[in-house]
């Protein structure tokens, strides 16, 4: 049974499998985003009562929190693939890490951007050098550094290894982002964000947030697999299976 799964570690057999999975992930993305945003905008309007100004613009959290979660989660997944690549020297793992980085960078930027648009009406400023904002910004630079280092080295195998090492070092930012708000002594991490506690979030808001998070996750699968297929084609272009595939599709 196990050998069946290892078969897909070969780029030649994963390429068509990824092609069949992409449409499924797009459908899941659409369903989750529609459900989450519909519920967030139309079924959750008056959960924050009174004259609280936040009840008018809190809808930003339906994309802000999912984007921030995805920025950290995708970094962890990227590091896992990079580490597997370093340990087992498997080509597909490095390609996977490569394919995740741009999507992760986009979600990190979106977390910062939507946070700025939350911060202006809430705290009167788009940006502050608060621990959480600063560590998230450094995570963005880690993604950019990974992509830049990889593209700066011509030899693909060397680029894979060097960039993987950088990604692993940068993993320290993920727990730092978490503890920047959830540190053991609340007095030592005076931060703009509240401590995170999922059980205290109102049910409708939590549902919308989780649905959009799942939608962003499925989106990440779809774009990562699309990018992975392009990377496979480029790197394996000298192999006979790519040429046979192109001939069969009438491209050559």
């Amino acid at each position, binding site marked *: 049974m196990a050998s069946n799964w290892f078969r897909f570690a070969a780029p030649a057999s994963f390429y068509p499998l990824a092609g069949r999975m992409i449409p499924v992930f797009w459908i899941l993305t659409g369903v989750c985003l529609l459900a989450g945003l519909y519920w967030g905008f139309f079924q959750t309007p008056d959960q924050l009562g009174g004259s609280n100004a936040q009840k008018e613009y809190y809808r*930003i959290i339906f994309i802000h929190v999912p984007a921030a979660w995805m920025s950290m989660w995708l970094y962890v997944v990227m590091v896992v693939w990079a580490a597997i690549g370093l340990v087992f020297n498997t080509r597909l793992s490095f390609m996977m890490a490569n394919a995740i980085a741009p999507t992760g960078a986009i979600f990190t930027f*979106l977390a910062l951007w939507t946070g700025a648009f939350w911060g202006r009406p809430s705290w009167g400023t788009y940006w502050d050098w608060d621990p959480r904002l600063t560590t998230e910004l450094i995570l963005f630079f880690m993604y950019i550094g990974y992509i830049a280092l990889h593209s700066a080295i011509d030899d693909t195998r060397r680029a894979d290894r060097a960039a993987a090492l950088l990604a692993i070092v940068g993993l320290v930012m993920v727990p730092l982002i978490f503890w920047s708000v959830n540190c053991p002594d609340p007095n030592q991490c005076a931060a703009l964000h509240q401590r995170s506690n999922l059980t205290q979030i109102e049910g409708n808001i939590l549902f919308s947030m989780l649905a959009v998070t799942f939608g962003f996750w499925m989106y990440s699968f779809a*774009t990562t697999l699309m990018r992975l297929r*392009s990377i496979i084609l480029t790197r394996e272009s000298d192999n006979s299976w790519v040429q046979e595939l192109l001939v069969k599709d009438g*491209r050559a």
Partner: protein
Amino acid sequence: MSEFFSQGGYAFFVWGAYGMVAVLLVAEILQLRAQRRTILARLGRLIRMRDSGVNQ
């Protein structure tokens, strides 16, 4: 309807946040599609060049 778009007077912040998300996610999809088309066209051209060279 206009009440929905005004978002209680915070339209700039709500739609500024959502707008950037929509723009970047759609841009990423379009970039990936263009990238795939470019790669397929280039590889197809290379194979045609090689095959025509063999035939001569």
